[in-house]
């Protein structure tokens, strides 16, 4: 359902994405791993056009965009792409001037023009699902980091995305708050949600990801089923990243 071919992106003279290919089925959970600055966050942000790739093509369900063509600047097409993706940010990015409930209702109410009562009911259901029904009328400043990220997940789900893009969802959280967010994501994975996840939580990736993609220097260096990639790493860069040293050194 998601197909990326030859995606490239440069920031000035720095090539961040150097021809990425990626394919992902509906219901598949994929973890993107790699060292800082390898381009994994940029890749994620290219998928909903928060960053504009320089070249390559992107297909998400029935939406297909060829980067670097006039079509890529088409606002309506970009909106359709964003309509099909949900994004979870490292810093949550909840709207601070609105309550948890209003944050979740915002997009259905104003983008899809869902009637107020319906949007409210759906938002309450989603808040219950992430365990925050009792915090519906709190402002983000009155919530803990973990609670804020759960509201952010509910907010993304409110638009019924086909894929949820998670950009290091637990990196800004204290260890004790990570669990509540990870368990919400794990439950989503169980329910068949398609997840593309940038993470440093390798144990979490091991638990819920069907497949791992290792990116280094703007390229996909290694990919495969989670256990194969994480437990029997072949590529020297991957071994280094996992802290295993060179295979030859072990042998």
């Amino acid at each position: 359902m998601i197909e990326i071919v030859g995606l490239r992106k440069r920031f000035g003279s720095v090539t961040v994405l150097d021809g990425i290919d990626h394919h992902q089925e509906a219901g598949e959970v994929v973890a993107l791993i790699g060292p800082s600055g390898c381009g994994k966050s940029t890749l994620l942000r290219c998928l909903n056009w928060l960053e504009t790739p320089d070249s390559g093509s992107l297909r998400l369900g029935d939406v297909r965009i060829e980067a670097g063509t006039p079509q890529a600047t088409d606002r309506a097409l970009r909106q359709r792409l964003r309509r099909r993706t949900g994004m979870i940010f490292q810093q949550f990015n909840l709207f601070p001037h609105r309550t948890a409930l209003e944050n979740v209702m915002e997009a259905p109410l104003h983008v899809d023009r869902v009637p107020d009562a319906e949007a409210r009911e759906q938002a309450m259901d989603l808040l219950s699902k992430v365990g925050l029904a009792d915090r519906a009328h709190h402002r983000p400043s009155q919530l803990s980091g973990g609670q804020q990220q759960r509201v952010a997940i509910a907010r993304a789900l409110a638009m019924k995305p086909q894929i949820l893009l998670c950009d290091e969802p637990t990196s800004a959280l204290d260890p004790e708050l990570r669990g509540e967010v990870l368990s919400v994501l794990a439950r989503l994975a169980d329910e068949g949600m398609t997840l593309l996840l940038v993470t440093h939580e390798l144990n979490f990736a091991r638990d819920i990801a069907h497949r791992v993609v290792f990116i280094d220097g703007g390229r996909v260096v290694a990919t495969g089923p989670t256990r194969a990639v994480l437990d029997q790493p072949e590529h020297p860069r991957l071994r280094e990243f996992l802290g295993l040293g060179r295979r030859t050194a072990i042998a």
Partner: protein
Amino acid sequence: MRRVQSLLLILLAWTAGLSSTAGAAPTPEPGIPQVLRWANDAEGGAPYIFHPAEQPDQLVGFEVELAQALCDRLGCQSRFVQFNWANLIPGLRQGGNFDIIIAALERTPENLAQVAMSRPYFTFGQQLVTRASDTGIRTLGDLAGRRIGVLASTLSHRLATRQPGLEVRVYDENVNYFRDLELGRIDAVLTDSPIATINLQGRPQLRRAGPAFAPSHYAIAVPLGSDRLLFHINAALGDLIHNGTLERIYQRYQLWDAAQAGLASWKPEPHETTPAAGPATTIAPNGTRPSPSTGLTLVTETSGSFGISGAIGATSTAEPTAVGGSVAPRPKAGLGRTLRYLPILLEAAITTLWVTLASMTLAMTCGLGLALSRCYGTPALRRTAIVYIEVFRGTPLLLQLYFIYFGLAQALGWNLPAGAAAVLTLGLNYAANEAENLRAGLEAVPRGQTEAAMALGLSPALTLRRVVLPQALRISLPGITNDLIALFKDSSIVSVIGLVELTKEFLIRSLDAGDYLGLGILTAAIYLAMGHAASAAARALERRLQP
């Protein structure tokens, strides 16, 4: 016999009043408007135009009564238009604001070059006033190296400037320099003789220095080319002079003197309009002016003590009559007296309030457009916004007001009403400030907010309206509130184009009441109340936008 005469007079006056009030909508002569709008500045004070201290809601003065008598004569209605004195002539030339000026305008070549002027309605001289203790001063020449106070853009101002070695202090109105003279801030005042007459009452520390000199005339100004109107005004003025109406009005204000008798035989002579310098042309006491009329002796008998250079002692013994009572030494200021001005000041505060709120609305609207252009616009829009902000922030507000009110009329024929020009100027000026306040707010909203909104599928417009602007506004609000309170005070600048707002009303009333302390505190309290209401509203809004 005298009794019968006065009875007859009263009857005559009564029937005349009856005919002018009961006469169903008198039709004025062609060329005369149904309602004749005459302009003056109520800050002019007694005896010209003022609010008597005991009846602060009434406007009186010899020019007010002259205007009424003139309009009665012309068969039209009289409407007073308040206008800043220094801007009367540009205001008349621009048109649309008022039809004529009756405001102690001198019949000088300078003025005649800009407006057409009627025959004179008042004759006066230049009177030098000093402290009584300063006995050495008799002429301008005695003042070398000393300070003299004059009213801006008057004959006195020109004469003082022409005299070498004087340090000239220019005032906007003609009462405060007497105060400064008493306090020793200046050493002399050069002013029109009626102003000297009225202000020397109750000021025993001051005296006339030498006789009045440089005779000149007040005349009514009409726009250049309004020959028909001028003809009718001249005719009506002639009637008022000849039938004694003018004399009766001036008597009430103790202004009638020998020199006024010459008004009847006035002819536009070349030397008439040229102010002579120095005391060579002194008007002798009790009027031995050229061509004295037959009524001269009678006139000098009845009001001789008010001759242009009449003695001060005689002045204070005269019994004031009717309205003239207000001209008498001012009653002491007190709380009760001060509070009587509260309704009047509050009414003026309404003008301040609407000018401020309308200007701020315009400023916020334009400021938002500018801030958005500057933050998100194309390079051309961005540059335009920057230039706009620099120009409006970097030039004086007063200059902008004159540019919009007088300049646009001159260049494009946009004859804006004073209120519109005031709101436009303040609004456009403050737009530059609000643009910068809002830009600070827009730039302070984290990038992640926009990204989150876009990722949810919100359009750029929705993102701005629902997500970025409310947060930016909260950040900008303290600065905007500051500006709103500053605007309450800055709005007083619009008085120069004729709007009577709180500060102008304070200036007019404190002059009339002779009370700067009480009225000053009252006025300050009203400003504080308005400013406090604004900041309370801002705090409430801030709380609502609080994360």
